[in-house]
């Protein structure tokens, strides 16, 4: 294990998250079983009070997860000097088992948490806590296992890391013909990927903007598609224009100072927009709940606007990269 402040902080964050969710689990089960708004019993009053606490706690944990992803990638990038062969975060993530697994787990947890927080917010708007059972069932059934899995993956990854481990750099992993998912992404034909990239992003912006009043499911679907297409597009062709090199497909190197941290300008709006788009979809099943019907459309519109703005920003940044680049691919 590499004893390092950022690693310690990441583990602290994850462990704290699991601890909070675990502590909340008995309460959540009690809510699921005993919640009865019509009752004025002592227990019900206690439960109502505690929902404040646990909603705040979970929101806190999820905000930490967001910071955690950023710290994880930044730290992986910085630790690359310790592994022969590594040149950016890819080498570090590849130097131990489950490096990429931990990253993907964190991304998944981030989106799940985003959807949960949206439901939580909607629930707090309704006077009769209409989503309280669903909310806590999702917390125990989905968030807790996901957070525990992320902690386990991070622990396995960090505890197995040894300095001087020989690893492979992004150049060999994200290479055409390297095989595996990264290699396949790099080898995708640029023409169709470019079309899918711009098409999906434009579709997501359009869906989020024009269908903001009733197209929640569609916005969610378009957001997920745009997320996947953007990641594929960055690896397949956009990276080449960033590095001005016909064979460098790494999606991580663009976070470095050499490339003016342009990766953040792509990834931050992409993640926020996708989370907002998925949140809109998560609200849809509850738009007919009587006490929520007045709030869900307004909340949906707000989230859709965030999603549209985010995807538009990604689109503009991508166009800016293509425009400014000196690379000409024929």
């Amino acid at each position, binding site marked *: 294990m590499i004893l390092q402040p950022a690693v310690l902080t990441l583990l602290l964050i994850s462990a704290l998250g699991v601890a909070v969710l675990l502590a909340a689990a008995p309460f959540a089960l009690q809510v699921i079983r005993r919640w009865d708004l019509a009752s004025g019993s002592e227990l019900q009053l206690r439960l109502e009070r505690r929902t404040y606490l646990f909603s705040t706690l979970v929101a806190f944990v999820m905000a930490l997860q967001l910071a955690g992803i950023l710290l994880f990638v930044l730290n992986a990038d910085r630790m690359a000097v310790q592994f022969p062969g590594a040149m950016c975060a890819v080498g570090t993530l590849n130097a131990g088992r489950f490096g990429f697994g931990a990253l993907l787990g964190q991304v998944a947890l981030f989106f799940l948490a985003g959807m949960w927080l949206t439901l939580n917010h909607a629930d707090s708007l309704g006077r009769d806590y209409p989503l309280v059972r669903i909310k806590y069932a999702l917390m125990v059934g989905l968030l807790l296992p996901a957070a525990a899995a992320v902690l386990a993956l991070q622990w396995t990854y960090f505890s197995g890391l040894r*300095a001087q481990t020989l690893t492979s750099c992004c150049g060999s992993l994200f290479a055409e013909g390297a095989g595996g998912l990264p290699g396949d992404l790099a080898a995708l034909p640029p023409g169709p990927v470019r079309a899918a990239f711009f098409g999906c992003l434009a579709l997501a912006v359009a869906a989020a903007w024009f269908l903001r009043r009733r197209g929640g499911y569609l916005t969610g679907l378009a957001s997920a598609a745009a997320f996947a297409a953007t990641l594929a597009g960055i690896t397949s062709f956009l990276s080449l224009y960033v590095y001005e090199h016909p064979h460098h497909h790494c999606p991580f190197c663009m976070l470095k100072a050499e490339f003016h941290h342009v990766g953040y300008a792509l990834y931050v709006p992409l993640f926020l927009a996708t989370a907002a788009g998925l949140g809109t979809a998560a609200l849809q099943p509850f738009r007919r709940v009587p006490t929520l019907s007045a709030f869900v459309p307004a909340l949906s519109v707000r989230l859709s606007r965030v999603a549209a703005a985010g995807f538009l920003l990604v689109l503009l940044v991508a166009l800016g990269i293509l425009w400014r680049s000196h690379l000409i691919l024929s």
Partner: protein
Amino acid sequence: MRAGIERQLALLDFTVASLARRKARNLGLLAVFALLVFLLASVTLFTRALRQEAAAVLAGTPEVILQRMVAGRHELVPPGYRERLGRIRGVQKVEGRLWGYYFDPVIRANYTFMVTDPAPRDGTIAIGPALARLRGLAEGGTLAFRSYAGELRAFRVAAVLPQPTELASADLVLVSEKDFRAFFAYPEGCFTDLAFSVANPQEARTVAAKLVRDLPDARAILREDSLRAYASLFDWREGLVLAMLAGALLAFGILAWDKASGLSAEERREIGILKAIGWETGDILRMKAWEGVLLCLTAFLLGYVAAYAHVFHGGAGLLEPVLKGWAVLYPRFALTPVLDGLDLLTLLLLTCVPYTAAVLVPTWRAATTDPDSVMRS
């Protein structure tokens, strides 16, 4: 949107006034928090700066150093060895280096004798600033050493190396090749080791592997490896100190918990009145959240600025012995200030997260108090 922002601003305004009403308590907590940030930030700033210095020094070292080994020990490079090296493709600027250690019983320290190009004239030496300081020497002075043949040899100090190079030159004695060979009775044509660069730096590892295959009695030391070793060393030292400070972090968490749960009667009344006049539990929670944010950020800023001053203007007196290491001929050097985004984010999370976690439950307990029960008591 605008109304939302105004609402938060009003809450913030109220929170500041409420914090000011309980000055003594909040200032105490602020001081302890700032002290904790100061300690942790001093460690991270100091190691980051040391790491930077190490990297700057190593950037000027040869790309690959080849040493000859006999029974696992470092041996002299015999004549003819150097020529065999030059035949390998990619190897450039092969240079035979001459250096060695000399123990000076006067100050009980080791000097590093070295031949450089250009070298001082025969009979003269150039010495490192730390050595000059310890032996009380200046340019034009004379320094005598007992040579390996047993006789005493006096050298005139032609120059004291400039202060900015001290990190690398503290214990250095630069001599001419002729003097070096005569002083240590060094065999003619032999070298201590060989340094060379590689045409394409990315191929350094491959070239080194090829060399070791062709010259099985040699070992290659790459600059990249030294850099990595230093990085691991500093990481490990920093991590160790931080792990020790984890106790302090825990103690601080307990203090914050205690402070937050020990609500004064006045504060309870305040919350009771607020709820009685229509504030909701959510509003009180938001107010308390602002309180936490204000306290966290102020303490962080104070602690960080103090740590910056401590490390870069005060010489990091509190941490030096642990993190820097120790030697008789220890270089004096000024650290170049570095601010690093990753370190800042790590530190912010490391200090504010435990605080927030510790005050959440007591805050909720305060926010959910019943107005009537408070007022009745």
